[in-house]
């Protein structure tokens, strides 16, 4: 049986992650809570913590808040301020190669390089998502009617990928071949970057708010339905003309959060009613990891080895589930 170490968080759990071996939970009220480290809690932002993402080295959490600050939070509770934009709500954040951090508020985004230098980027409409390409200093920004690709360190015009509608989150496939956005109207849109071929992934009953690439980028798992929907990306043309996997189907609750296992073909699925399951791709085998309760699941994260799963809910329940070997 999986063993759960529960944790009470004061506030909406915005993100769960592992900073080294310590599980870190970012609360909307402004603090980061820890499980398994020397500290249990550290205040980070005034006026709310709006976004958080792990650093690529897996040793810290990068957060943005309603106080206009961008901070680095380590597993031992140390907080380092990386940048500040007074009076702005920093609600989008992404981490990239060479310790770079991108963050945005309204129609402006900034990229902080390892050196501490900050570059400013502008769009005519608001930024709605940011993602670094896996290699090279290229930053994708989702927006109304498409995505803009900026080259952070090079001069020259950004590349525009157009598709009508409001795009929200943006994500690169792990090898950098595809770019996918979630959209306002219950769909995903994707581009094969080599030839800018459009891909439409539709049929969701709800908005897609959580996406996760499986090991080696073979599938993209998504929320927004009463099952986790996994689009196959292993072929030459991605998911075009192929049916997605539907895992963890339930008749009575929507999937709110998904997180693919770091090495196995398995996905952790969080539901609207608080339930968490792990489901294997090839035979749809399900393992119940958490019973329903305490609000919709809002955060899930595997540790590096894939033996522990951190979860959090909108109503402040959280914990670390250890899987049997």
């Amino acid at each position, binding site marked *: 049986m999986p063993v759960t170490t529960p944790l009470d968080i004061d506030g*909406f759990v915005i993100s769960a992650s592992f900073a080294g071996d310590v599980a870190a939970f970012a609360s909307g*009220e402004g603090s980061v809570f820890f499980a398994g480290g020397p500290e249990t809690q550290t205040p980070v932002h005034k006026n*709310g913590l709006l976004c958080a993402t792990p650093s690529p080295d897996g040793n810290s959490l990068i957060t943005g808040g309603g106080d206009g600050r961008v901070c680095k939070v380590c597993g031992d509770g140390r907080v380092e301020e990386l940048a500040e934009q007074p009076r702005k709500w920093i*609600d989008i954040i992404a981490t990239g190669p060479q310790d770079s951090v991108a963050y945005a508020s*309204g129609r402006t985004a900034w990229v902080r390089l390892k050196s501490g230098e900050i570059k400013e980027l502008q769009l005519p409409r*608001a930024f709605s998502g940011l993602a670094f390409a896996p290699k090279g200093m290229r930053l994708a920004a989702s927006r109304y009617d498409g995505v803009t690709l900026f080259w952070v360190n090079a001069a020259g015009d950004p590349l525009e990928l157009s598709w009508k509608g409001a795009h929200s989150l943006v994500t690169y496939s792990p090898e950098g071949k595809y770019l996918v956005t979630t959209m306002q*109207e219950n769909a995903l849109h994707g581009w094969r970057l080599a030839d800018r071929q459009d891909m439409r992934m539709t049929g969701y009953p709800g908005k897609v708010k959580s996406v996760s690439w499986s090991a080696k980028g073979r599938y993209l798992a998504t929320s927004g339905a009463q099952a986790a929907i996994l689009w196959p990306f292993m072929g030459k043309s991605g998911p075009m003309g192929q049916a997605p996997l539907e895992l963890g189907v339930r008749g009575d609750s929507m999937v709110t959060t998904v997180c693919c296992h770091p090495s196995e073909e398995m996905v952790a699925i969080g539901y609207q009613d608080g339930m968490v399951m792990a489901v294997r791709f090839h035979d749809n085998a399900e393992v119940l990891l958490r019973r329903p309760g305490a609000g919709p699941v809002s955060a899930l994260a595997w540790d590096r080895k894939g033996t522990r799963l951190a979860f959090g809910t909108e109503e402040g329940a959280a914990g670390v589930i250890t899987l049997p070997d």
Partner: protein
Amino acid sequence: MSEAADSRIPVTVLTGYLGAGKTTLLNRILSENHGTRYAVIVNEFGEIGIDNDLLVETDEEVYEMNNGCICCTVRGDLIRTVENLMKRKGAFDAIIIETTGVADPAPVAQTFFMDDDVHDAARLDAVVAVVDTRHVRQRLKDTTEAEDQIAFSDVILLNKTDLASAEELAGVEAAIRRINPYAKIHHTERCQVAISDVLDRGAFELERILDIDPEFLKKSESVQDHECGLDHDHHNGHAHKHDHDHPDHECGPDCNHDHEDTHSVKSYSFTAGDLDPKIFFDWINQITQIQGPNILRMKGILSLRDDPQRYVLQGIHMNVEGDHQRDWRDDEKRESRIVFIGRELDGAALKTAFEACVAE
């Protein structure tokens, strides 16, 4: 859903031109309503400071929904801001949105009906317009925004009345009534109004649609003098006939003759008896699909054939929601009433079509 069970956060939208007094009203609400904590969303930090802990500045972002309909617009910045605020649910009890003077209120209002996440988290309580009594008629001549703001509002503060003559005030009120017959109008100086007249109005709640008798019909009964400013031939059942050749009458900007009327937004109110539900719903679906862009707001209380309950509906452009409200009481007359506020609507055609819905 009963009202008591609705735990969604109430949202009040303040509209009005720059300088009309929106920020004055906002600060009054914030300073007087002790015990309620507000999240305030503004589109620009104005010259007057806003004294509130939770203050968010957003850039207006109007999105078209990808459904091919040009009137299905929402405010992307509000979707995001409300989503972000919901991550701090414990920090506030209500939301106030102060829009810019030129903002179109339709996408603001539609955000609360068309986006599922926002609709689940927050409910639009009312759209409140603050109007500068001295300047509003000029604004109505110059722009369509001022007209839209008045047409969309549930509550209108006719502000700075101390700086206008009684005659001016009456003319302004009449001009506003022609655009919007059912908003509550308050005459104010420096936005002095009871906070309860502005907040917790439930203007979009079907349960609270009590009466859509155009306010001015009631009012006009007590007005004894010449009422050409209040009369309009499209108001069903109103017998007053305006005589264009009235020898003593001098035409001026207050008059409502067609040649003087600069407003493109008009309201049409119709009454009828029991309706055939099939014919009515077919018609209302069709009319809101086809004329959606021109219909700014619509409200109805309907008596459907063989139905013991009142049916209420309200709409913004082509977004219409309706529900059974309660049983008809023995002491009230079963009657169907509907009001359209819109631009370039064919009142006569609407009237004919509505009357064709009457049950045989």
